[in-house]
């Protein structure tokens, strides 16, 4: 089967000598909802830049739905819709003009473009603003405008570079629903995000990039299965003194409790343990649980461990690879 995206040995060295990509290999299947994660300056935006031809690659090959960007660039571009990280539309143009002109760049007739603009502006709740200049929009509206613009030529693959950065939680969730719906319709979606919860909730497959290298490329399920420990937070009914809780935590066998305050306990559970054991011990101590939640974002824990693992290997080897801060500066300067 032809992949939606096939990257092999992709490398990019910027003029100043900064090596943003060190020969990465990556494939994304058609119809996938794929997360590309990494810290600032890891190479995410450079990868997207190369795929969308905004960045000239130094070496390697990129194929979009089987079309090589070196030999069939225009065909490859026609499959991609891009929602970049930074706002990149004219601040002075009205929304309708931005969308209709964008469709025109892909050869969509004006009459068809007007229909599509109406459809997407309504779906993304921007229809009332259609005749206003883009600068009049709020940050969240601008993000939605960029999604509408990326969909105007009905691409087979949508690439979103941190689409929900700076967007409030309610709007973020409505954007997630919108993206899920697009994916159901068969559009391949590649997402980079800093909100790891977002990747966990939306994406089926994931690659983690760091220092210009892919450090993990697997399914979300497999990645999360690597997780050894999960942390649960118990809100307990008031009644016991703090000292009594601390005594319970110290004396409990097999399970590690942490007392946060007189009504909150945290528990780390590994794969060999289960919540029944916890509840048995809490019941025995007459501690009444009012509610329980999963504490940390699980993906975040894994992400940090993977990145730390790589950093420690680099430090051990003392290869002189730039640290994340330096990479961020270099990427920012590109």
């Amino acid at each position, binding site marked *: 089967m032809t992949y939606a995206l096939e990257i092999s040995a992709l490398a990019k060295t910027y003029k100043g000598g900064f090596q943003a990509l060190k020969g990465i290999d990556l494939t994304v299947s058609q119809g996938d909802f794929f997360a590309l994660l990494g810290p600032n300056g890891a190479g995410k935006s450079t990868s997207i830049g190369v795929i969308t031809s905004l960045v*000239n690659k130094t070496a390697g090959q990129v194929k979009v739905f089987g079309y090589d960007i070196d030999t069939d660039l225009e065909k490859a571009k026609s499959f991609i819709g891009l929602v970049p990280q930074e706002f990149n539309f004219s601040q002075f143009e009205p929304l309708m003009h931005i969308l209709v002109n964008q469709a025109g760049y892909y050869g969509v007739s004006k009459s068809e473009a007007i229909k599509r603009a109406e459809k997407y502006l309504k779906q993304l709740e921007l229809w009332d603003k259609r005749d206003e200049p883009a600068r009049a929009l709020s940050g969240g509206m601008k993000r939605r405008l960029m999604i509408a613009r990326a969909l105007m030529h009905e691409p087979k693959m949508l690439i979103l570079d941190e689409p929900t950065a700076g967007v409030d939680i309610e709007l973020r969730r409505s954007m997630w629903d919108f993206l899920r719906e697009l994916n159901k319709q068969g559009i391949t979606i590649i997402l980079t995000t800093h909100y790891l919860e977002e990747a966990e909730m939306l994406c089926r497959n994931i690659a983690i990039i760091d220092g210009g290298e892919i450090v993990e490329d697997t399914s979300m399920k497999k990645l999360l299965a690597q997780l050894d420990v999960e942390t649960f937070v118990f809100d307990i009914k008031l009644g016991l003194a703090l000292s009594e809780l601390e005594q319970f935590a110290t004396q409990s066998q097999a399970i590690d409790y942490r007392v946060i305050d007189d009504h909150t306990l945290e528990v780390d559970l590994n794969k060999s343990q289960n919540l029944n054991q916890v509840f048995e011990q809490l019941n025995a101590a007459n501690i009444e649980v009012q509610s329980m939640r999963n504490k940390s974002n699980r993906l975040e824990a894994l992400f940090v461990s993977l990145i730390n693992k790589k950093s420690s290997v680099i430090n051990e080897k003392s290869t002189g690879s730039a640290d994340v801060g330096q990479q961020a500066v270099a990427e920012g300067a590109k």
Partner: protein
Amino acid sequence: MNNSIALKSILTKEIQRFMRIWVQTLVPPAITISLYFVIFGSLIGSRIGEMGGFDYMSFIVPGLIMMSVITNSYSNVASSFFSAKWQRNVEEMLVAPVPNWVIVAGYVGGGMCRGILVGLIVTLVSLLFVDIQLHNIWIIIATVTLTSATFALGGLINAIFAGSFDDISIIPTFILTPLTYLGGVFYSISLLPEFWQGVSQANPIVYMVNAFRYGFLGISDVSLVTAFAVITFFIVTLFTIAMTLISKGIGLRS
């Protein structure tokens, strides 16, 4: 891919842009040209007498129209393309399957539209001051079209290299304006000493102004064939440079 739709979209966007800010783009040339007519035409011109067999006001009209066309064709593309780079909305085109020649043609077409529209406005304003003669309308159309294309291409190349808004005003200020003023707009180069006549022949604007003046008055300091050859040479050269720069992504892709 339907390139004609993409071309039309860029052209539409460009025309919408300068029409949206018509107070900045279309009105100033009309005011400037009125001042030229009042000062150089009525006040000073009446003391100069004839030039090239015509009263001074009639002599300078074609040059003033051409000066407006040159300035506006150039500045339209320079400011619009640089602004698209600066706001990064140029990426809208770069990520789309738009061939490079369509990008060049779209922006140059937009610059030509503004240059020619301003030329028409200036012509209408000049009718308030002088009766305009028409010697050969086809020469007028050909000259104004080719000249606006030449300077629109120049503006595009300037914008591709520009890294700041200052960079798009340096060439108009230090190169374009002197060349225009020394390009025979206000005088016949036959009045110059022989050495300076020779120097003037290295100024491409001399050929454009003279071919244009020929269309109105039937007089020219240079041969029409040479004039059109020079203009064509500049168009081909600048188009080739612009295409090469955009293909390589100079100033556009990292």
